[in-house]
Structures are given as structure tokens and as C-alpha cells.
């Protein structure tokens, strides 16, 4: 495997409940403030206390949007996590472990020696309590020590931690003392810093925003004029609810935790019918419960937007791990034939923009729109200089006489219920132009065709998939969602590889794909699911059979090494 030396990774690991996520986020934010491009990647079990949790930050002077499998520094605060992650440490890397000594198995000893890995035992819990902190502040000690190895200004880290805990009831002075106790610890040696690869900060990098994909979706929803959020907790969608709820006092958003997903989506549908913009977000299981309502939105031609945050596996699966296997349920779910739109995000700009686009499409075309994200994007921490400009709000409102008037585009007039407008019936029964139910054969055909005509109209409006990389590349990866981030990070130095990225999954545009096939490019399907669901959709439409598929469905995202290994094989 060839690996370019432009990025480094630090992994924090411990048990769930030991503050791993918080510590990782603080380090990520601090590196961001120190001028790095960052990506924060979180692994955690579906339990509150115990198990193994980790937070890895990849940082570079180049844009990074994906995690690497191996890290340069591993910092562990529990025995289990030391032994679980030890083989993820790179050549010439470091392990900083909480404790007076580090005990390794013979096999681990061999790995450490062979890879010239330096071991440092730092009794951070004891150091923290000696500094007047609590045991959980061992994390601050470890952070301080790490920061020293990175040779960064201690004030940046202190500022970051103060800001992070700003509104929480935490002894900030004790946190500060613990950071300093780590930073100034006598175990530090200059050779540590000399021996480790530390990328230079980016020259162009100003102080950037660092946020998760879910944060960007929530912000996009606000920009889109969303005024109500109806939620029900389900990882990894829940943090959209968190940001919208925590800011509701200033935004005036109506936030409601519904009794279940069916209620949440029905309330959203009712609110959208009445003329506001409402959001609901869930994961696969909750989405499946919403499907009957999606079909009803399609039939009644009521706008509806749902964020579907995917995770690994069918049923409960591996709930806190990533995956992208819900294209089938998003595209094909729901009884009967009806128009809808499925869009997939990948990074911060797309999260922010596509949720707005989802509302514009949903209102203009009067169809349900499903916005796909993944745990990897939803909870991954990205940096960005500026979010894109907000989109113009387009609602397609038009007063009329017949709510389901048959038109050339399939789009009928839709107006917001109000005293001054003509009342109308929206219905999930097959109906005539005025909404009254019908069983007449000719009328059923006419209205079904009118509804489906919207798909043709929509297909003309949406863009082709995006092509990234060298035009003359012989090999082209094809994928959607978070695989874009890993592939683009990986192929930087490989001009013979390009990437075709699908944002609009349904309706599906295949002209550009077919052009690549006709140019005899080597096509490689890359998906974070077991069967290649996007590939199946493409095959269904084009008749093309994918001979090369890179599929990963072990709950992990594609690491940069996965793509680099593929290229070098």
C-alpha cells in the first residue's frame, strides 16, 4: 500500500461513559483552531456505560473528509480499549495509556517492537485528582500531554475546552489545571515530538467552522424556512432533533417529540398540508413505519420531507455503526405506484444545500422527498470555511379551482388553506380533479398518469451525477453518500482514477454513466451495503452489469486504506 504523508490521525479510546466523545470533539475543534483541516470519526457501542468507544481525528493541511483505519497516536483510558485498538497503531506511532504501566501480551509486544511503537504510561487519573480535578478529567490530562507532543500553543487547547464547557456546570479552573498538568508533565521528551509525523497547518486555513453532517442538515432546514420538527429518537438521526431543539428558543421553531414515528410523520404531513414547512428525521426502522404515510403523501400530492439517517444492517442491525443500505426501502418502499424523490448527502455543503432543495422539490412537485444520510456523515465532524449560500425558497404555490387539475407537467395548482382561499379536499382515495373519490376506470388511469408525469418533469430539472477527477482516467468509481469522501481523499495522487457521484438517486439519471461505459472505462461500484443497491438501480435502468464491486457492510465506513489497497492491488 502506498501512502502519502500528508495526514495524521489520533485516536482516543476507552469505555462508553468515560468522556471519549467529548474529548475527541475537543481535540478535533482544537486542531481546527490550530489551522488544520480535520475529520472526526466516532465509534461507540449501543449502551450507556462500558464497552469500547473511540473517537479518531484525522488532520492535515489538505482537505480531509474521511477517516483512516490506522492512527499515529492512540490514547487509551481503559485496559480493554488498549488491547482492542493496539493493532490500529501505525509504524513509528505512539500509545499513551492511562496507568502506571502498560502490560501487553507476547503477541502485542512483538507487534509493538516490529513497528517501532513508543509506549507511554501516564497515570492521568491520579494526575487529575492531584491537580484538584475529578477522575473524568484524566481526559484533560491526556489531551494536554498530546497537545505538547504536537508542539501546539497550550492556550488554543485551553480556550477550546473553556468554550466547550462554557455553559455546562463543570469546574473550568480544574479542567484548566488538568490540561496544564498534562501539558507540563515531566514524562514528556522532545524526542517524542521529533519522532512523530505532524503535518504542517494549512496556510489558507482561517478559523473554520467544525460541525457534523446532522448539524448542517439542521441548519439547512432553518435556512429553508422549516418551522416545526416532529421527532422520535433513533440513532443516528437524533442529533438533528438536538440542534433544532436547543436553538428553538431563538428560532421560534416548534419542536415536538411524538409518541412514535407514525405520529411524527403524520404530524409533519398535517403541518405541510396546512402550509408550513415541517421536518421529521429517523433511521431505517422508524422510516419503515413511516412508509404508509409516504405512499399517502404521494397519492394525496401533499409535500413531505423526511431525513433517513442510515445505519448498519436490517432490523435493529448494529445501531451505532454506519451503513448505506436503505436505498431500496427509500426508493421502492410504499404500496402502489407514486412519484417521489430520493436524494443523498455526502459532506457539509451537500447536507446544508440538499435539505433546502428537498423542500423546494417537495413543495413544487407536491411529492414526498427522502433525504438520505449515513451515520458516518451524520456524526462525522467536518470542517468548512463557509457554508454555501442559502437557496431561494421555491414553493410553487398557485391558486386554482381544481386541486388535482390535470396539466402538461403533472403539477396541479396548490394553495395554502386560508380563509380567503377556496377550501379543498386532499385525499388518499383515487380521485377526480376536484378531489372527490372515484372508481371509474378511465378516471383512475387519467389521474395515475397525471401523478406519474411529475417524475418526468422532475427528471428534467435535476442534475446529472457529479464527475470528480481526471477526465482521461481509465478507471471510474461509482457510488453515493459517504464513499465520495473517502474516494476523493484517496485518489488525490492517482490521476488514473476518477469518481462518479450520485446525489439524486431517484429519479435516476444514467446518461453520463452510460457515456462512461461507452468510452470503455473500467467501472467499479463502491457501496457501504451488502448488495450494491445503487448499482441495482443503475442496472435496472440501463441493463448494465457491474463486474467489479467494492462493497463493505461491516458497520465501518470506507477507510482511506480500503481504497488505496484496492488501487494498489
Amino acid at each position, binding site marked *: 500500500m502506498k501512502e502519502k504523508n500528508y495526514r495524521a490521525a489520533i485516536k482516543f479510546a476507552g469505555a462508553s461513559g468515560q468522556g471519549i466523545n467529548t474529548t475527541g470533539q475537543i481535540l478535533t475543534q482544537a486542531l481546527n483552531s490550530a489551522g488544520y483541516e480535520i475529520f472526526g470519526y466516532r465509534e461507540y457501542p449501543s449502551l450507556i456505560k462500558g464497552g469500547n468507544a473511540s473517537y479518531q481525528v484525522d488532520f492535515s493541511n489538505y482537505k480531509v473528509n474521511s477517516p483512516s483505519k490506522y492512527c499515529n497516536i492512540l490514547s487509551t483510558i481503559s485496559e480493554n480499549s488498549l488491547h482492542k485498538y493496539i493493532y490500529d497503531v501505525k509504524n513509528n506511532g505512539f500509545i499513551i495509556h492511562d496507568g502506571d504501566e502498560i502490560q501487553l501480551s507476547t503477541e502485542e509486544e512483538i507487534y509493538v517492537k516490529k513497528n517501532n511503537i513508543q509506549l507511554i504510561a501516564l497515570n492521568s487519573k491520579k494526575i487529575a485528582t492531584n491537580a484538584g480535578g475529578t477522575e473524568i478529567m484524566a481526559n484533560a490530562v491526556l489531551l494536554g500531554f498530546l497537545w505538547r507532543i504536537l508542539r501546539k500553543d497550550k492556550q488554543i487547547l485551553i480556550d477550546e475546552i473553556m468554550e466547550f464547557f462554557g455553559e455546562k456546570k463543570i469546574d473550568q479552573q480544574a479542567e484548566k489545571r488538568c490540561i496544564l498538568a498534562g501539558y507540563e508533565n515531566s514524562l514528556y521528551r522532545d524526542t517524542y515530538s521529533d519522532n512523530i509525523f505532524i503535518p504542517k497547518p494549512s496556510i489558507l486555513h482561517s478559523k473554520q467552522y467544525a460541525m457534523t453532517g446532522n448539524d448542517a442538515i439542521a441548519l439547512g432546514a432553518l435556512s429553508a424556512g422549516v418551522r416545526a420538527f416532529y421527532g422520535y429518537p433513533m440513532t443516528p438521526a437524533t442529533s438533528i432533533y438536538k440542534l433544532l431543539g436547543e436553538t428553538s428558543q431563538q428560532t421560534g421553531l416548534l419542536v415536538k417529540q411524538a409518541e412514535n414515528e407514525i405520529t411524527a410523520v403524520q404530524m409533519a404531513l398535517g403541518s405541510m398540508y396546512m*402550509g408550513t414547512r415541517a421536518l421529521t428525521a429517523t433511521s431505517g426502522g422508524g422510516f419503515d413505519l413511516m412508509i404508509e404515510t409516504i405512499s399517502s403523501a404521494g397519492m394525496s400530492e401533499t409535500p413531505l420531507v423526511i431525513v433517513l439517517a442510515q445505519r448498519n444492517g436490517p432490523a435493529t442491525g448494529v445501531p451505532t455503526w454506519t451503513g448505506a443500505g436503505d436505498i431500496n426501502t427509500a426508493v421502492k418502499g410504499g404500496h402502489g405506484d407514486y412519484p417521489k424523490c430520493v436524494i443523498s448527502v455526502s459532506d457539509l455543503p451537500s447536507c446544508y444545500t440538499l435539505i433546502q432543495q428537498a423542500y423546494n422539490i417537495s413543495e413544487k412537485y407536491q411529492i414526498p422527498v427522502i433525504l438520505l444520510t449515513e451515520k458516518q456523515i451524520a456524526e462525522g465532524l467536518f470542517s468548512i470555511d463557509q457554508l454555501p449560500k442559502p437557496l431561494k425558497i421555491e414553493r410553487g404555490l398557485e391558486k386554482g379551482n381544481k386541486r388535482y387539475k390535470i396539466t402538461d407537467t403533472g403539477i396541479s395548482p396548490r394553495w395554502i388553506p386560508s380563509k380567503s382561499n377556496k377550501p379543498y379536499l386532499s385525499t388518499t382515495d383515487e380521485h377526480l380533479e376536484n378531489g372527490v373519490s372515484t372508481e371509474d376506470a378511465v378516471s383512475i388511469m387519467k389521474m395515475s398518469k397525471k401523478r406519474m408525469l411529475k417524475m418526468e418533469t422532475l427528471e428534467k430539472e435535476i442534475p446529472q451525477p457529479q464527475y470528480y477527477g481526471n477526465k482521461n482516467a481509465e478507471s471510474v468509481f461509482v457510488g453515493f453518500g459517504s464513499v465520495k469522501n473517502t474516494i476523493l481523499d484517496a485518489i488525490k495522487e492517482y490521476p488514473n482514477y476518477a469518481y462518479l457521484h450520485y446525489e439524486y438517486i431517484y429519479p435516476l439519471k444514467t446518461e453520463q454513466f452510460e457515456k462512461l461505459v461507452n468510452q470503455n472505462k473500467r467501472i467499479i461500484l463502491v457501496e457501504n451495503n451488502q448488495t450494491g443497491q445503487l448499482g441495482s438501480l443503475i442496472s435496472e435502468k440501463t441493463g448494465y452489469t457491474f463486474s467489479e464491486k467494492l462493497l463493505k457492510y461491516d458497520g465501518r465506513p470506507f477507510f482511506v486504506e480500503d481504497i488505496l489497497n484496492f488501487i494498489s492491488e
Partner: protein
Amino acid sequence: MSIDIEKYNSQHKPTWCPGCGNFAISMALKKALSELNIPPSQAFIAFDIGCNGNGADTVATYAFKGLHGRAVALASGAHLANRDFTTIAELGDGACFHEGLDHLINAVRSNYDITILIHNNQNFALTTGQATVETQKGKPMYALPGGKPEKEYNTNELILSLHPTFFAKGYSGDIQELTDIIKRGIKHKGCSVIEISQLCPSYNRECTPQWFTEHIVKISSLKNYSETSFDDAHNLIQKMIKEEKIYTGVIYENKNVKTFYENLPSRKSFTTELSEEVKEYNIKKILETFK
């Protein structure tokens, strides 16, 4: 002064069986809206699936005929988006006590300012007479020639246990009383639950008009009954069980509970409705917290 009741009718005639209680319930609702001077363009009715839902075609108000069991949830969302509308959810005992029971329970708990009309004909009529929880134990029903094997649950006890802010019972055979009850329900600020005993000549033949006449007692005939007393309501329901009677009228009203919307700190300073607020929100201030 009231609005001409014809204004609430569309050009389409109902499709219910002759003698169906839905004719009267639909009439009582239209009368209530008319007498309260709520024009068709200020009323929103969420219809469920079932015989009553087939009435969606016959009204000239804003309406949404949705999915089975979901009328209350849909109405709740519609109501929160624009509280200037009088929002009604109409559904049968199948929709309310089977498919959508969770919505009823939680709408009462949240106390949305909507009115829920439960058309209780004690069976799934549109699918030709299956047993509901409300069908008497032992009664032969669709695919149950040996009779329904399980007991009913008492919907009065269930609803009262939720501490509703408005709970009333009506009868499709008494349009005037039902109209008055619906008017009270609409005027009540909070979630009004009105359970209506409904004639179903096709699948609930035992409960004839004669049967109802013998079993219905008006709450107004009770001396010293207080609608605002939870104890009176509780005792009345026990009395109904003991006497095997149906008491119609307002069972309980509590005007001192705030609605869901009124309890939202985020909406305190707003005078507009959510439906009027769709415009770009400037995220600049929130964005700063991500630096």
C-alpha cells in the same frame, strides 16, 4: 345569526346505508359549525378510513382523507401549523381504539386544541362487520360464528383515566343534543373527546333505535352533577357500568389546563402562525457556535 348549512355541503351525496347514524353525526357537525359562525374556509376536518371517512366527499370545508387510524395525528399537525382553523378529527371505533389508540392517548395528554369525534358503531362496518374491542363478547361476527372470544374494554374508563380536558358522550339519534355537545367541544380550548354512540342497521342490528331509547339517559337529568368535578365523572362512569346505561352530555370539562402550544417556551413571543412563517431564517448567530 348563523351560516347557511348548505354552505357546508359539497355537491356529492353520502353513500351510507339507509338508517346509518353517520347522516345525523355529519348533520350535527355542520349545524355546530354553522351555529358557531365558523365558515367552511375556516374549518379543517381530518377524516379517517371507514364508513364515516366516506363522508369526506360530502363536505365543503378544507379536509384531508388520510390513512386508517391516523386522523388524530394528522389533525394535530395541521392544527399546530395554523390555529386559526377549527380542527376536527373524525374516526370510527376501529380507527380510534384499534389502529390509532396511541394517537388518542397522546393527543389527550398533549392537549392539542382539536375536537375528536369518535363514531362508535361497535364494529368495523365498511369491511362488512368484523369485531372491534367495542363489540360485545360472545356476539357472532364476521368470521367468528362462535362469537367474539374476548371481552371489551371500557372506553369511558380508558378516556377518563387520561384526565382529558373535555370528554362528552353523544348519540346519533339525538341531533340537537349532539350539535350542542359538538359546539361545546369546539369552543373548549384543548383536546375535546366526543364519543358518539352510532346506529349501524347493517352490522349492529341489536342496537336498534328502540334499544338506544331504553338505554340512554341524559346527564342533564342528573341532580347536582358537576361537569368540572373529576369525582362526579368517575362515579358516573361506574354508574354506567353498573346500570348498563349510556349517559349522554358533557361528562367532564377542565378549563384550567393549558394547551400544548401554550406550553411551548419557543412560541411565547410569536403572534403569527407557523403557516405564515415560511421564509429563510438567518443562521448566522447559530453558526458562530460552531467556530
